């Protein structure tokens, strides 16, 4: 017996995050660490809980081990429920055969039976790779008020950046007239955030249609796809369905690239960025690591940084984010950097403008990254990246823009 749910959320967490290179070698993108103690997926999961959505399907595919273990029974997000709760939905084999998820729409299509069990009125579709705090229930209310078939959350972006996004063109009532993926000459600055509310009956209809159309095209040897933006939204617009844009105001950051991941972390240290992780009314939950409090030694110099439990700092840390269990020895320097869990920065090492993955050892005498001022040609500057489980031995260095995933 399943209780009817007004809203079911489907979280697309199968992304490889290939532009995060070394950081997603062995973990799916939603499991990438962020902000000293979180993983990216903590944001949509916590938003669901805080929005009163207690039934969440998480669609996994790429490197699911860490993500599955992390989500577990959903207890850290209060999603361990008798009815509903969080469920990890990997690709599976059926009588018709086994198939990987062939696009975002197909991933939901293959799990329609999961949604049907709760007989929902609305389905919220979410990504697992954005940093933001959002009350989805307000978006659902907006959807209901407009008698919409689909509501797409949008954010106003600078015109110069608009060609990086899926852009919505709307009338004065926020009704979507057109949708263009990454337009060369954007006609609007309303970018899709990849967050959708669908009336379930409409979504079900279009998922089935898209699946049949795409398979027919494939059989005919034509190009086909099974994606939300490209196929479902386009088809609904073509059929004059009621699509509305829900304007979101607040902090929203896509962390698709190493630079944007670094920036999104640095944003936490900026007093002008409106992402408050200390708000007791909208906590971002995460799985805890059971470590003792952090210890700042007698030689520590710590300024403008965020540091998580279990860290031991006896060196200098400035404008940086240290995750749980990080050690910065006396005489080590960490500036403008992100250091992921359990990494040791040894005495004499300098880490600046860098992302260092988890469980690394950075030996003394090493130099990871450089400040933009130290680089002659600005185009040569970028974040230096050390992947997870890497040892950087003495006197080696990692240059700006360099990404290493093996011991050096």
């Amino acid at each position, binding site marked *: 017996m399943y209780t009817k749910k007004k809203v079911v959320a489907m979280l697309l967490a199968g992304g490889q995050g290939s532009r995060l290179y070394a950081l997603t070698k062995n973990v799916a993108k939603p499991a990438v660490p962020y*902000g*000293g*103690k979180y993983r990216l997926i903590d944001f949509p999961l916590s938003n669901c809980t805080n929005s009163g959505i207690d039934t969440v399907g998480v669609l996994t595919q790429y490197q699911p081990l860490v993500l599955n273990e992390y989500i577990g029974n959903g*207890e*850290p997000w209060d999603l361990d429920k008798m009815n509903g709760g969080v469920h990890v939905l990997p690709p599976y084999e059926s009588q018709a055969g086994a198939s990987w998820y062939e696009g975002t729409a197909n991933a939901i299509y293959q799990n329609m039976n999961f949604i049907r069990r709760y007989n929902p009125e609305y389905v919220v579709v979410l990504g697992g790779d954005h940093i933001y705090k959002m009350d989805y229930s307000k978006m659902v209310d907006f959807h209901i008020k407009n008698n919409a078939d689909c509501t797409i959350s949008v954010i106003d972006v600078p015109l110069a950046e608009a060609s990086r996004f899926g852009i919505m063109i709307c009338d004065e009532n926020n009704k979507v007239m057109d949708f263009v993926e990454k337009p060369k000459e954007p006609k609007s600055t309303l970018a899709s955030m990849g967050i959708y509310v669908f009336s379930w009956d409409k979504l079900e209809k279009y998922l089935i249609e898209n699946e049949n159309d795409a398979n027919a095209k494939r059989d005919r040897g034509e190009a086909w796809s099974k994606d939300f933006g490209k196929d479902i939204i386009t088809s609904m617009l073509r059929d004059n369905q009621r699509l509305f844009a829900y304007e979101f105001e607040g902090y929203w950051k896509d962390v698709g690239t190493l630079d944007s991941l670094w920036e999104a972390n640095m944003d*936490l*240290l900026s007093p002008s960025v409106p992402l408050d*992780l*200390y708000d007791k009314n909208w*906590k*971002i*939950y*995460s799985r*805890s690591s*059971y*470590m*003792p*409090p*952090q*210890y*700042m*030694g*007698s030689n*520590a*110099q*710590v*300024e*403008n*940084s*965020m*540091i*998580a*439990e279990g860290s031991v700092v006896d060196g200098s840390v400035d404008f940086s*984010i*240290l995750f749980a269990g990080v050690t910065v020895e006396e005489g080590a320097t960490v500036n403008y950097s992100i250091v992921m869990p359990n990494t040791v920065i040894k005495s004499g090492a300098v880490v600046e403008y860098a992302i260092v993955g988890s469980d690394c050892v950075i030996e003394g005498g090493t130099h990871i990254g450089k400040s933009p001022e130290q680089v002659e040609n600005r185009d040569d500057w970028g974040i230096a990246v050390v992947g997870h489980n890497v040892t950087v031995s003495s006197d080696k260095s990692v240059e700006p823009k360099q990404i290493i995933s093996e011991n050096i």
Partner: protein
Amino acid sequence: MSSVNYNVLGLIFASMHDSYVSELTKKRTMGSIPFGGRYRLIDFPLSNFVNSGVTEVGVITKANYGSLLDHLGSGRDWDLARKKGGLHLLPPYSQTGGIYKGRLDALGNIWSFVEHSKAQYVILSNCDIVTTIDFNDVLRQHMSTEADITLIYSKALYDSEKNNNATILDFDEDNRVKSVLVDPKISGECNQWLEMLIISKDLLRTIVADAVSKNIYSFTREILQNNNNEYKIMGYEHKDFFVRIDNIQNYYLANKMLLCEDTRKALFKKGLPIYTKVGDNAPTKYGLESNIKNSLIADGCVIEGTVENSVIFRGVKIGKGTVVKDSVIMQGTVIGNDCTISSIITDKNAEISDGKVLKFSETYPLHIDKNGKI
């Protein structure tokens, strides 16, 4: 972590010696006194049991146990929300009326819980001695020596001027307890009982039933002290760090001991994590002019001033230009800008407004009550 040991039942006395630190137990039990930045004292015995594979634990409470219930919940954070065994809260209930007076009295009241357990052995622990211990070694010794009772002790300095009401043991050449002194006026190195023991359930049943019929209630005085020839009482030496929370001064010093690396290594051992209630706090944020030296700091704090030689609990705010030295600042305390503070203990959610100067000595640290405002 060892595998599950269904053969041992753990019993924790959460309120034993509440009166020693009356400043901190006005509205809570000994077990729920905040300690070490993110813990409550009961986290240590609870984690000791869990890390030793003991997954059936009863917590015996007395009065003021609201904060304890809030902390423990279903026991989930200690992995003790179990179908087999798990955490059981045993509120005070006395057949004779009134609140129990001693361990035997308390055990008599909760005996049906103990009887119901399938375990053959029972380990008793208090909350006022902080240590990390693996009970499997103690159990092995208890069985191999065929002891009736094994008392866990440590050889360490004791000073009756500074400590409170310890039980001191003396052994014969076979490590059998020869004499038991309660609260002796002594100073120097001695064998201090850590108020932890192993006993078989069968023997404990006999002792408790006998105590109820004779109306005696002190385990220490009536069983250990007066009957130590009747039973084979052995000692197990715990050769590791421990600290007594036996007055507010020692509570303060015990927190400050955590600033020493050796203490942290002894209490927070690899593979023996100390579990506590999850707080879901963000990491701690240090401001542009922060300056932190030799301090232990929990999650969720926002620190913009200077902190030295202090223990800072979860969610504390320390303003710009403020200097905090040699202090124990409990959860949720808010200290304004430009304050100068040394040697104080603030209880939960205390508030100190801008510009306050509070300078005390390490010998007599100032204690500010829960929700207190200065």
